[in-house]
């Protein structure tokens, strides 16, 4: 019996090529995109989920600062971890990880590398987390302070196929590290991803040599700390206990609040529960569902519409003894056949587009059909869509009254037409929603890109000078002689995305207990001029000796500190008690997602390690070459790497840009699928109304009249869709914009534009069929009855 069903289904498919192609291509696209998005979602949700003890691992974070400057830091002080483990029974284990600011060059025999991601960590890193030691001693991954654990990839890079254990890597030409362990490369869905891990004990020793006792330093917030907790530990009471430990050692840190962030949530949430990437994940899930729903609607619409044309077959089957269940199963099988075809095509399509998708989405998704998780997604998607699109048509078809159907008395029933109309409206509502989304996202991203930052970052290359810094004046003179170099200046860290923060400050009138977090930046005397920043009040640095006790604040800092007539007023930062000599106009040194925060320029030439070379753009390559030569001259074998400020700036919005691009693609595809459905429906309508059109033409209707007749019905539906979708779109996009401190207003023209676009698209789609129907010879169409 099933063979018979399959045969009929297949022949139906072949016979109605036009509808089959519309149905299959719509489903294929929908399934492919739906599965692709869900794979992306699955990847996002899987971050850091592979650790066996993951449910009991937490990152210790800090809510620090007061007032407007209060924020979450994912790093804390070094002693808190070991102290907690010592004093609190619920803390079974802890690990601290800190970045490497000591070495930058690693050498083995004649091989030298400089781009390794190196951290210092406690050995418990390998027992708390599932980063198993595959070579070396699992129980004791670090044999001594001068040992190092490396990944397989790093081992391959340094030693080729030789056994890495016991090999010596020389760091910066002065310290030897012996490889004591090899771990697997970090999984792609791990937030942690390093090449070499050196023992925390080395870092502690190195700091001691510089008179800093890491293990009692409660001022340096520079360590990522993870706890392995006993199951069922109360996070609230633990965070209170951590605060008590902290305050016992540093009484004035009353504004410090400890937070415990579950490992699995690190990727998508902030420690205070606010979302970091979860919103995007949700949006993408919704988009995937929308696209699948649109594809299902196409299928349901076309198959119910066309069922009228199959009335004869269905009735005959009934008369010959088919029960309702027979017919129901027949149509389910028919849909399943179509879906199988679409599925095969969709899987092929995914295989083809996944490299492009990975590039756009900055992912490394592997479409591996031997992976069970991939199949979960595929099966879930397909069974869901199959059920959604087969049950209604099957029910409807199997409940035909055979006699009426046979006599052609089942013409489009009112209820069904209504149902189809609702589906079309739904489809186009989604489309309008996506069009509005695309327009808003695009204009917001344009807004960010074109917004005046308050300084000129164009064609400026920058890099860390290292030893060249000691010869800065000579280098500067040399570079300024180069054609294409407009200016050269320097500062303590990158002006874009200045991450340094300090709460160590004071001024007359500062409230008791107030923690005022500022972003300090040491700059050279010509920095403000070179970046074309504007002074609102006072003057810049001149390079005089007195400048070391001078500060320049930005407008926000002056406003938030509440300093009236700031010029000449006292300001203290760290140990320097000095005066404010100028106020610089606010400038964006971080992402537009954040409000401009208080910023302080100070003058301390020892700290000016980042050089900026502004070029004409055209001669940028020459300037890079010259800068590279200078770098080599003073830094020897250290590799020269530089970046353009424009790129750094763009990378701040990389996530948004990617989302924007993906959103555009998805919206395009969703609209395309909707149009396929519309095309099919228009064709069906034209077919069903052939007689009516014929009669109208005989009675004198013009071609444009007929086109209007066919198009009006659909355009009306699109108009309703616009009315429904616009407020929803406004609400959703307004929500999205809340993530930006600096944002556009959604103007009503967006909706007019989105509406016009969708009407236009719908009209063009319908016109194909309408024109065809209108041009047909009425004699022929009347005879066909």
């Amino acid at each position, binding site marked *: *019996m099933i063979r*018979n069903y399959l*045969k*009929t289904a297949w*022949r*139906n498919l072949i*016979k109605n090529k036009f509808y089959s192609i519309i149905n299959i291509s719509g489903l294929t696209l929908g399934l492919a995109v739906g599965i692709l998005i869900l794979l992306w979602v699955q990847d996002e949700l899987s971050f850091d989920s592979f650790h066996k003890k993951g449910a009991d691992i937490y990152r210790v974070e800090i809510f620090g600062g007061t007032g407007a400057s209060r924020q979450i830091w994912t790093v804390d002080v070094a002693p808190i971890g070991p102290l907690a483990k010592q004093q609190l029974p619920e803390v079974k284990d802890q690990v601290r990880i800190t970045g490497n600011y000591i070495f930058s060059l690693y050498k083995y025999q004649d091989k030298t590398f400089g781009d390794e991601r190196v951290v210092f960590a406690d050995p418990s890193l390998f027992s708390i987390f599932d980063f198993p030691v595959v070579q070396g001693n699992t129980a004791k991954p670090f044999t001594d302070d001068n040992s190092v654990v490396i990944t397989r990839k790093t081992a391959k890079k340094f030693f080729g196929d030789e056994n890495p254990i016991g090999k010596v890597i020389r760091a910066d030409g002065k310290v030897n590290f012996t490889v004591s362990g090899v771990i697997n490369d970090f999984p792609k869905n791990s937030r942690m991803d390093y090449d070499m891990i050196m023992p925390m004990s080395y870092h502690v020793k190195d700091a001691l040599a510089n008179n800093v006792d890491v293990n009692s330093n409660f001022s340096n917030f520079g360590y990522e700390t993870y706890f392995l907790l006993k199951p069922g530990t109360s996070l609230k009471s633990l965070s209170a206990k951590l605060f008590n430990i902290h305050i016992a050692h540093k009484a004035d840190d009353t504004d410090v609040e400890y937070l415990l962030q579950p490992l699995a949530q690190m990727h998508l949430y902030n420690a205070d529960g606010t979302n970091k990437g979860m919103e995007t994940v949700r949006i993408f899930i919704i988009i995937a569902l929308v696209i699948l729903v649109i594809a299902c609607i196409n299928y349901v619409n076309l198959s119910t519409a066309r069922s009228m044309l199959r009335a*004869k*077959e269905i*009735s*005959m*089957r*009934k*008369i*010959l*003894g*088919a*029960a*309702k269940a*027979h017919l129901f199963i027949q149509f389910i099988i028919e849909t399943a056949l179509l879906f199988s075809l679409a599925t095969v095509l969709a899987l092929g399509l995914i295989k083809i587009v996944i490299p492009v998708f990975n590039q756009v989405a900055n992912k490394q998704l592997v479409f591996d059909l031997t992976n069970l998780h991939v199949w979960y997604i595929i099966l879930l998607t397909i069974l869901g869509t199959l059920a959604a699109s087969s049950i209604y048509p099957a029910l409807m078809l199997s409940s035909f009254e*055979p*006699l009426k159907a*046979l006599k052609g008395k089942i013409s489009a029933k009112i209820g069904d037409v209504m149902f189809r109309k609702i589906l079309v409206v739904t489809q186009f509502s989604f489309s309008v929603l996506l069009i509005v989304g695309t327009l808003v996202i695009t204009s917001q991203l344009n807004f960010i890109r074109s917004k005046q930052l308050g300084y000129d970052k164009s064609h400026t290359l920058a890099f860390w000078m290292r030893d060249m810094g000691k010869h800065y004046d000579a280098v500067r003179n040399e570079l300024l002689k180069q054609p294409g170099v407009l200016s050269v200046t320097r500062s303590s860290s990158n002006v874009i995305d200045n991450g340094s923060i300090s709460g160590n400050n004071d001024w007359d009138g500062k409230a008791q207990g107030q923690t005022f977090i500022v972003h300090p930046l040491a700059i050279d005397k010509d920095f403000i001029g070179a970046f074309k920043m504007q002074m609102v009040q006072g003057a810049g640095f001149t390079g005089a000796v007195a400048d070391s006790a001078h500060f320049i604040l930005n407008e926000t800092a002056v406003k938030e500190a509440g300093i009236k007539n700031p010029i000449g007023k006292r300001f203290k930062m760290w140990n320097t008690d000095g005066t404010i000599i100028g106020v610089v106009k606010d400038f964006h040194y971080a992402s537009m997602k954040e409000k401009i925060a208080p910023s302080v320029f100070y003058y301390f030439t020892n700290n000016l390690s980042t050089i900026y070379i502004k070029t004409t753009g055209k001669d940028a390559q020459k300037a890079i070459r010259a800068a590279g030569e200078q770098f080599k001259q003073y830094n020897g074998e250290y590799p020269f790497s530089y970046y353009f400020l424009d790129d750094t700036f763009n990378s701040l919005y990389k996530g948004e840009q990617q989302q924007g691009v993906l959103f555009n693609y998805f919206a395009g595809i969703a609209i395309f699928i909707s149009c396929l459905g519309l095309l099919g429906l228009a064709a069906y309508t034209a077919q069903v109304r052939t007689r009516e059109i014929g009669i109208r033409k005989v009675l004198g209707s013009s071609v444009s009249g007929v086109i209007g007749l066919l198009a009006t019905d659909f355009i009306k539906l699109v108009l309703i869709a616009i009315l429904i979708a616009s407020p929803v779109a406004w609400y959703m996009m307004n929500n999205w914009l809340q993530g930006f401190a600096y944002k556009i207003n959604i103007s009503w023209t967006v909706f007019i534009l989105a509406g016009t676009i969708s009407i236009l698209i719908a009209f063009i789609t319908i016109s194909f069929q309408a024109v065809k129907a209108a041009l047909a010879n009425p004699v022929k169409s009347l005879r066909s009855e």
Partner: protein
Amino acid sequence: MIKITELEKFYRTEEVETIALNKLSMHVDTGEFVAIMGPSGCGKSTLLNILGMLDDPDEGSYVFNGIEVAHFNERKRADLRKHNIGFVFQSFNLIDELTVFENVELPLIYTGVSASERVKRVEEVLDKMQIMHRRNHYPQQLSGGQQQRVAIARAVVNKPKLILADEPTGNLDSSNGNDVMELLTDLNEQGTTIIMVTHSEHDARYSHRIIRLLDGQTVMENIMV
């Protein structure tokens, strides 16, 4: 075999109620060949549909083979129908997507006959209808006469006790029409009861008895000699 008593059927639209069958009574014996005639709208198709259990009457009794079926639900009617009744239509109503063989096979599938048995029986009946050579063709590839023969093959493949024919020659030329009538006569002679609705006096002459309807009532019965 068939006994109907005071059968009534109404069709209602929003404004008008039409009486299709008006207290109609009749009976058909096993092995009879009965023609039903009458002008358009006299209720003959309605009658045929009720006899074929495709439709149910509003009032009255319909006893088929000693079983009262007037108030059977759709499932029961379908079950009784598929084992006992074959249909032949004016417009053949073959399924375009199925071949000749598959069209004829269909009733056997729905009555749950095994595959090997199906092949045997379909081939047998196709042979009898002399369209064996067309078994793998699709309906559109056949002439009208051939299509109707396939339709008859399909109607008889389940060995029904009753065949209901609704103007079986209506879409055929006279030579093909005569062939079809000969086929029906043969079937009748082999014991199948046949009830046929027709407009054609010529075709009606093949039957044993003509029942003439007007406005949903029997107006005359002619016994053929």
